[in-house]
Each structure stands twice: as structure tokens, then as C-alpha cells.
């Protein structure tokens, strides 16, 4: 068999794979030549000092920013072959702030499916809200929610799109310890039961220790190390 036939028969790697992913802005490398794999059912913590390029890396994964070099493969397919809207439905993102749209919890959670002309049934909506610990919150105005509740709505809104991957950009940085722990537990449960691909940016190495299966360290846009969370984070602490 020739090389081409062999490669066609090879199993398509499940998950997200970055290939020499880079982004330059004003001749400054925000992300430089990063190649990593994100696997279904495990949480990858993206750790590094402020301004290291953690959020920039995450934004490249669902193409909110355009790579200036390299690419991302979703289940083996170059993500630039997918329409941006479909890609972002499949790779969901939760921002540092909830950025809830004015209205009720239901209008927020229904937003994603509406973009594809779909409507969540009341059962689906109730199940989703229950899953994030907000049963009975559907008709609440989002302006009356606490920070922790707002972040749960944000997570439910992303999950309503049934994504295969979840990207979280410091989702608990503005929350108190109790709310932060509750979100962590919720996240762990969802990733395990749905076998979701998950990357979480955090500056908190203790949090990364608690929830991550693997960790990657970024400094000045470059990948310093990647591997099992305990090993990588312990080595990072020592430095």
C-alpha cells in the first residue's frame, strides 16, 4: 500500500490538535508555535503568568482570532474548512465574565440554538438548568443573579449548543471560594459524563491541581511544558 492509502486508513485522532499554532500582532508573538492535543473526557489546564498568551491561545482554538501560522484540527479536520458559526457551536467558550444578554435566564440559554433556527423544548431547558444547579431559575431576570449564578447561566448557555469541546477563560476568577468550588465540581461532572474536550485557562495553580488531568505552561507565547497535571504543575512551582 502506498503512503496515501495508509494515511487514509489511519484512525482519525479524536479531539483537538494544534499544529505549530501561532499568532503575531504588531510583530509581537502572542502565541508562538504551539502543538498540543486536547482529548475527550479530560481537562487541560492552561497555566502561565499574566500576559503569557493563555487567553490568546484559547481564542485561537475557536477562531475568535485568526492564526497567523499553523492551524487547529478538530477530529482530524482543519478547522478553517468549517464555517465559523458551526465551528463555534462545536467548540463552546465560556468567558471570564458571564456577559449575559438582557432578559431572562431562558432567553440567554436559548440564544445558541436559535442561531440555527432551533428551539429547546421546555423539558430540555429544564434539564439543562437543573444540570447547572439553576432549577426554577428560567424566568428570572439575569440582572438579579449573583456572580456564581450568572456564570452557571453562561455555562448552560454554552452547553445548550451541545458542544464537543468546552473552552473556559478563567471562569471562576471573579467568584468567591465557595462559588468557585461549585463551578469546578459542575465542570468536572459535565466533562466526565459527556466526554467533552475541555481546556481551562487559570492563573491559579491550586485550582489547576484540583481539576486538571493534564496541564500546559505558556510563557511569552511559547509552550514551556505539557503533560500530566501534577508533574507539570509541581515542576512549574519549583521554578
Amino acid at each position, binding site marked *: 500500500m502506498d503512503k496515501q492509502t495508509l494515511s487514509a486508513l489511519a484512525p482519525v485522532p479524536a479531539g483537538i490538535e494544534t499544529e505549530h499554532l501561532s499568532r503575531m*500582532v*504588531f510583530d509581537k508573538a502572542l502565541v508562538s508555535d504551539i502543538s498540543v492535543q486536547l482529548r475527550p473526557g479530560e481537562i487541560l489546564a492552561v497555566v502561565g503568568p499574566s500576559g503569557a498568551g493563555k487567553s490568546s491561545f484559547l481564542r485561537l482554538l*475557536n*477562531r*475568535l*482570532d*485568526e492564526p497567523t501560522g499553523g492551524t487547529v484540527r478538530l477530529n482530524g479536520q482543519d478547522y*478553517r474548512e468549517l464555517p*465559523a*458559526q*458551526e465551528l*463555534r*457551536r462545536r467548540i*463552546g*467558550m465560556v*468567558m471570564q*465574565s458571564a*456577559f449575559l*444578554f438582557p432578559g431572562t435566564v431562558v432567553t440567554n440559554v436559548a*440564544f*445558541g440554538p436559535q*442561531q*440555527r433556527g432551533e428551539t429547546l423544548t421546555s423539558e430540555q431547558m429544564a434539564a439543562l438548568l437543573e444540570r447547572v444547579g439553576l432549577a426554577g431559575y428560567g424566568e428570572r431576570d439575569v440582572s438579579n443573579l449573583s456572580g456564581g449564578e450568572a456564570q452557571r447561566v453562561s455555562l448552560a*448557555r*454554552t452547553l445548550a*449548543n451541545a458542544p464537543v469541546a468546552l473552552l473556559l477563560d478563567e471562569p471562576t476568577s471573579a467568584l468567591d471560594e465557595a462559588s468557585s468550588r461549585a463551578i469546578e465540581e459542575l465542570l468536572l461532572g459535565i466533562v466526565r459524563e459527556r466526554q467533552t474536550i475541555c481546556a481551562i485557562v487559570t492563573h491559579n495553580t491550586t485550582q489547576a491541581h484540583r481539576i486538571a488531568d493534564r496541564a500546559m505552561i505558556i510563557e511569552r507565547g511559547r509552550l514551556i511544558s505539557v503533560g500530566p497535571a501534577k508533574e507539570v504543575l509541581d515542576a512549574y512551582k519549583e521554578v
Partner: protein
Amino acid sequence: MFTELLNNVNIDIGRGAAQAIGAIVLCLAVVGLCRRFGVHVEREAAISIARGLAQMIFVGIVLAALLHGSLLIGALILAAMTFAAAVTASRRARGVRDSLLLSFYAIAAGAGIVIAGMLTTGTLTTDLSVLVPVGSMIIANAMNACAQSVERFRADVTAHVGYIETGLALGAVPSVAAAPYFQSAVYASLLPRLDMLKSLGLVWIPGVMAGMVVSGANPIYASIYQFVIVAMILAASAVTGLVATLLMRTRAFSTAAQLTIRPGIEKRNGRLKP
């Protein structure tokens, strides 16, 4: 044409010169008064008076020559005005790709459609002494609408980057993600013109009507015609505001639906990085 111009000069020059001398004497008296109080503006005042008089005589001669020209000359004057308006409006859109073209298209669309409509329906005659002043009013208001909509859209988008990118991250197309800011920009560009229409006759009596009444037109017809002009200004502003904001929205997102108007992303040389 020049014979007529010279006749007009002969008829009006005496009266105009007398009025100008009167104005200059009054200015010099004020300069003298200032001097008594130790404010010395004699030299600057003399230069300003001389320059102002010379410039206005020159503009008068040019206008007198142009206003007897054909519709083509009128179209050229309005096109030049539109370009000048686009240059002014584009200053509010610094950092936006092709801001001058954006402003020119928007103002030309708004003012062009309305002026063409008025000419077609006979609301506006091809007489340049009417076409140019009325056209300039429409273009000037379209220019303000363009600048206001562009500035508002840019300010709203940069202030709500998180909401817009959240929408995009949930699979929304740019027109949906930026819809609230699109609407507020168009509305902001219309608001002054809506207020203008509301206060018409109550707070202000515009120049066109005053001029028509002074030159002997029926005051009721002059009032109605003034309403038509202000309504057309509103229409031109609406088209301009819509086109400017649509073009601005197109430039605010890349082909992969990425927001390009973000603090820190705008290039220092005045263009956006895609």
C-alpha cells in the same frame, strides 16, 4: 453671462461698497475702543478685515459665474461638496479601513437619492441658484449623520466587545452579534434630524423659508416648502446613517466572523489588522 454679471456688479456695487465701508468703520471703532482699554488688535484686525473682504468678493464672483452654469456644473459642485463632506466625516472614523470611501459612499447614497428624487418630482429645479444651496443643506446634514453613526457604532462596539464576542462564540453571525449597536448607531444619527423636524416653526424658522418670504413668495407655500426640505434632510440622513453603519459593520468583522474593532487591535498606522 459676463455682461449680465457686470450689469449686476454695476447695479449693486455702490450699495454693497457703502455697506462694507459702514461695517469696516464700525469694526475700526471697536478696535479703537479696545485700544483705549489696552487691548491691541489693530494689526490683526486690519489683516482680518482685508482678507475677509477680498475672500468674500472672490467667492461672490465665482458663485455668480457658477450659478449661471448648466446642470453639469451643478452636479460637479455637489460632487465636490460630497467629497469635502466625506473628508470631514472620515476624520471620525480614523483607524477604519477605507474610511474616506465609506463616508463618500454613505453621503453620496443619502444625499444623491434624495436630490435625484427631488429633481425627478420637480420639488427641486435645475436652476443652480436653488439646486446648490438646497443640495448643500442636504449634503451637510448627511455628513453629520454619517459622522454620528460611524462614531456611535465604533464607540458602542469597543465598549461591548465582550458581549459581541460572546454572541459570536455561541454561533451568531456578525449582524446578530452586533445588532443592538447597529440599531443605536442609526438611531443616534437620526435623532438630531428628528428633533429638527419636531421644532420646525416653533423654535426656529430656517433660512430657505425666510429667504423666500423676503423675496416675495407666499408665506404658506414657503412654510410648506421648508417642511419638504427638512423632511428630505431627514430622509437623506436616514439613508446615510444606514449605509454608513452597514459599511462600518462590514469592516468591523473579518470574513471568518472575527471582531476586528477591538482596543489594542487597531493598527497604529490607522488601519485595522484583519
